[in-house]
């Protein structure tokens, strides 16, 4: 019963090998989706390329549905899978700062790394900026500690907040995603910029 690494006696070094393999798959999938191009990523916010939302929601829903089915059939113990913990202020403010960084740099760390792997110089600068950002956070940590650790609510689940069962929430999410995909296709036609899209 998964997660496999939580079985007693599982060697720690093998967990790291798994990490490497998962990373390779992750980088491969990102690059295949075309996310190693900052103009493609930024296109999401100007309407001419909505690949981001299609890939993002498809991936989230496939993993969600897959894990729930595996849990139902006893193959995966969802209690042992990490659930992100909710720190109210930190999540919102960090998200806003990230949004600014996204539109400025045109990358997020995962896509930036896969872009770096295929030779994009701007991704290299994004990477260096990233290191600087992490360093900045580490050095200013005492000042920002209260915000970062404040308002801790624990690993809250979305469906509990809305009082829905997991199955109902997943169905609504899939329905919402289907609408978003449809709107995205319309937006691509309306905000099309053939001069950019032909280069991507």
């Amino acid at each position, binding site marked *: 019963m*998964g997660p496999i*690494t939580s079985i007693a006696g599982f060697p720690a070094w093998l*967990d*790291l090998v*798994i*990490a490497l*393999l998962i*990373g390779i*798959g992750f980088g*491969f*999938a990102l*690059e*295949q989706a075309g996310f190693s*191009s*900052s103009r493609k990523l*930024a296109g999401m*916010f100007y309407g001419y390329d909505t690949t981001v939302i*299609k*890939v993002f929601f*498809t*991936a*989230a829903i*496939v*993993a*969600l549905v*897959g*894990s729930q089915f595996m849990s139902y059939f006893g193959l*995966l113990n*969802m209690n042992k899978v*990490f*659930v*992100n913990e909710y*720190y*109210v202020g930190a999540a919102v*403010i*960090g998200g806003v*700062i*990230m*949004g600014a*960084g996204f*539109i*400025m*740099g045109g990358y*997020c*760390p*995962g896509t930036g*790394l896969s872009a770096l*792997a295929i*030779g994009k*110089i*701007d991704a290299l600068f994004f990477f260096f900026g*990233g290191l600087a*950002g992490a360093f900045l956070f*580490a050095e200013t*940590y*005492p000042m920002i500690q209260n915000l*970062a650790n404040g308002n801790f609510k624990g*690993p809250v689940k*979305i469906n509990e907040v809305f009082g829905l069962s997991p199955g109902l*929430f997943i169905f609504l999410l899939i329905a919402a995603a289907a609408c978003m995909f449809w709107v995205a296709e319309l937006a691509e036609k309306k905000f099309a910029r053939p001069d950019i899209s032909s280069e991507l």
Partner: protein
Amino acid sequence: MNPYLAGTLLGLVLLMAMYLSGRGLGASGGLKYCVVSIVGALDRPHADRSVYYSKYFENGQKPLKNWLPIEVMGILAGGFISGAVSGRLKFKIEKSPSISKTRRLVFAFLGGIFFVYGAQLARGCTSGAALSGMAVLSLAGFVTMVAIFGSAYVFAWFFRKNWI
């Protein structure tokens, strides 16, 4: 590759991560571990004194010997393989024709600073918090995702010269 197919592939990779290691994906955390090990190598006493760095050196552990940094190395390898297979390997600075190369590089650097700083605060980036959070129905992931995309749409107007 068709975006929906790529999304399915990505979803399966995430599912494998959950099944094998009991956790989601991540990227910005790997950058953090890089910085920590560099600081540890250059100025160890400072690291030991600081509240933030010291927890990564407890019991003599090496910060790079963790799930995230190794996964990040895998991302680099996987991106390279995919680029090689699809013939996309090329050194270039990707930018809109209407701005200069320097401007693009400056903004890329600034973007990196902001993004990873915010990612450290929110304990995750788009892959670690938003994507993996959605896959486990975590409210934090959902809120972070809405904040990232919402604020990016707002800021998009201000930076439109850079892209279109």
